[in-house]
Each structure stands twice: as C-alpha cells, then as structure tokens.
C-alpha cells in the first residue's frame, strides 16, 4: 500500500512539475518546476514494486546519482539565469 501511495505521488509530481516547467515564463520558477518533476521521477522509480522486500540498491544508487546531477544542472542553470539578468536580458 505504501509503495502504491508513493508511486502515485511520484507520477503526480513528475507530470505536475513537467507541465509547469513549460507553462511558466519566469526562469527561476521553471528551474524549481524541473526539480520537482525530477524528484517525482526519482520517487516513482523507488516506489515501483521490485518483487522483493526492502529497497533495491541499484535503484538507490541510480537515484543518488540523479540527485547529484540534478543539483549540478540546477546550479549551472541558476548562474546562467542570473548572468542573463545582469546583462539586461529577460530572465
């Protein structure tokens, strides 16, 4: 039951964040939306039933890698966004 609840939550967050990324015009809100969509994908991946009890270490390692890559990408995106605003562009 727990797995089903979190699977539903993960898929909900993935779709919600993914769609909002395209709907918002503000850069900062878009980056946050993308992060929420990513978290949703991670959650769905971890909550999907694997046939055995306990957590799958391979999935956990995969999501751990995903979290670190997400923060790296967000960091670069935020710096680009701030630089764009400083140069007088639309953020």
């Amino acid at each position, binding site marked *: 039951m727990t797995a089903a609840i979190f699977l539903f*939550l993960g898929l909900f967050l993935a779709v*919600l964040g993914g769609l*909002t990324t395209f709907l918002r015009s503000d850069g900062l809100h878009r980056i946050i939306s993308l992060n929420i969509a990513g978290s949703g994908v991670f959650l769905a991946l971890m909550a999907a039933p694997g*046939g055995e009890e306990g957590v799958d270490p391979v999935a956990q390692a995969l999501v751990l890698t995903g979290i670190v890559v997400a923060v790296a990408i967000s960091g670069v995106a935020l710096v680009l966004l701030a630089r764009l605003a400083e140069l007088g562009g639309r953020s």
Partner: protein
Amino acid sequence: MVVLDALLALVLAGVAVATLNGLRRFRAVVLFVVFGLLLALIWARLGAVDLALAEAAIGAGVTGALLMAALDRLRRTESSRAVAGSAPSLWPVVLVALAAATVGMVAVLSLEPAGRPPVAFHLGASGVDHPVTAVLLAFRAWDTLLEVAVLVAAGVAVRAVGVVPSPPSTEAGPLQAGLLRLVVPVLVVLAVYLLWRGSHAPGGAFQAGALLAAAGVLVQLTRVPGPMDRPALWQRPAETIGLAVFTAAALITAALDVPLAWPEGWSKLWILTIEAGAAISIAVLLMRLFAGGAPVAAATSDPGKGRS
C-alpha cells in the same frame, strides 16, 4: 503506518502545488526547501536511508542555498520584487497530473515485478559491506566516474559564465563568527564520519561532500571576500582531485587487468581513497556553483585565465 504515509504524501503534494503556484520567487524557493525536507522523510519511510541523507543535504540544503544565491543576484539587478509575467492557473494542470498518475499507477502495478540485480549475492566481492556503496564504487563505478565528471563540467561552465559578482558588503557579526567556529568543525567531523561509514552503512562521498560544501558555504557567507571570490592555488586542484584520482584508478586497473575492477583484498582502500578525493571535489565544486562565477582577480588580470 499507511495513514502516516498517506498524510505525508498529501502534505508533499500540497507543498508541491503551493511551490509551483503564485508569482513570488522567494515564496517558491522557501517552499521548495520544505518540499525537499519532506521528501527526505519519505525516503526514510521507504527505507532508502542513503537517499534521505542525500536529499536533506543536497536536494533541500545545497539546492536551496543555490536558489537563494540566485535570488539575491536577481534582486540586485531587477528592482521589482514581484515577477514580470503572469502565473497560469495551476488547477487544470493538477487535474491532468492526477489523471496521468492514476493511469500510470495502474499500469505500473499491473506489470510483472522485475527481478532484482543480485547485489547482495555478490556483495562479498566488492570489498565493502554496504550495498549502495558497492553499486556506486564497485559494480557500477563507471557511472560514478562520469557523475564526478558532470560535476567538474558544471564547475567549468560556471567559471566560463563570468566572474563572481561583487558580494553585498556585509561583514560577519560577532554572532555569525561565533556560530561559524562552532558549526564548521562539527560539519567537517560529521563529513569524515559519513565518508568512513559509507563502507558499511548508509553514507558516502556524496553526503560527505554536501556536508563539507555546507561548511564552505557558511564560510563563504561570513567572510568578505569569501574563499571562492579570489583566486587561490588550491581551488583548481581541489575542484579536479576527485576526477583525477578516479581516472588514475581506472587507468591503473586497466593496466593491471580490467578497468575499475579493484584488486582483490584491497578494494576497500581503493574505494575509500576515491571517495575521499570525490568528497573534496564535490564540496569545492558545490561551493563554486554557490559563488556563481570565476574568481575575480584572475579574470581581471588575465581575462583568458578565468574563462577556461
């Protein structure tokens, strides 16, 4: 406990909708940090302790700090606190997401459960006792090597964007300085503990690196200029040592036998050495992302140097 899980899921969904709804950036950033901390609780409920640690330290902590730093820079360039542009109504999106999640959940639950990779069976061969660390640094070490490379690439990209913007001239007060003296040593000790612990229990290079980065961000915030604002000889070596050690290990093992197959009996030493290097690089690269650019003096004295 299903009630608790359902409640947690409901609150997280609510916080996500609140984060995505509305125009104010500051509100969205604060709610996103709350979102990350709640997600860390969910990871703990699912039994994924490594992810709970990483989410709290990296997902909520470091990403929150990066968002705050960007918010500060945006505020100094734009006079308005409110955001230009409109926020679309979120309710149709919520309905679509609910429908898609229902369909998706039914579809996934109807699938035959996939067999798991037999990590526990081969754990003895990896040299460490914690399955996640074994996957990250023994069985799938290639992935982790490239992940460290992604972080280095992010650091290079941030350096290339331009110099660190001049920080607001706020010297640390006595309270901040005192807090720093208390918190930074504790964070460093905790980071070393998490690194060591990673060989037999949840923990490891990424959680340790994030804690070190938190200590570094605190120093960056309280010193004017911060350690990442001016060029220093240690910065580039520290940014690349993780990738360098990992690549060297890959080349040495390739010469011996198979790339990234640790010599039998010595794998724990190899893994801990690589993790220590990676933790330092992760910490300094996350600090570089927080600082938001190349060190200033290097870029003014030699424009080519700061942009490499």
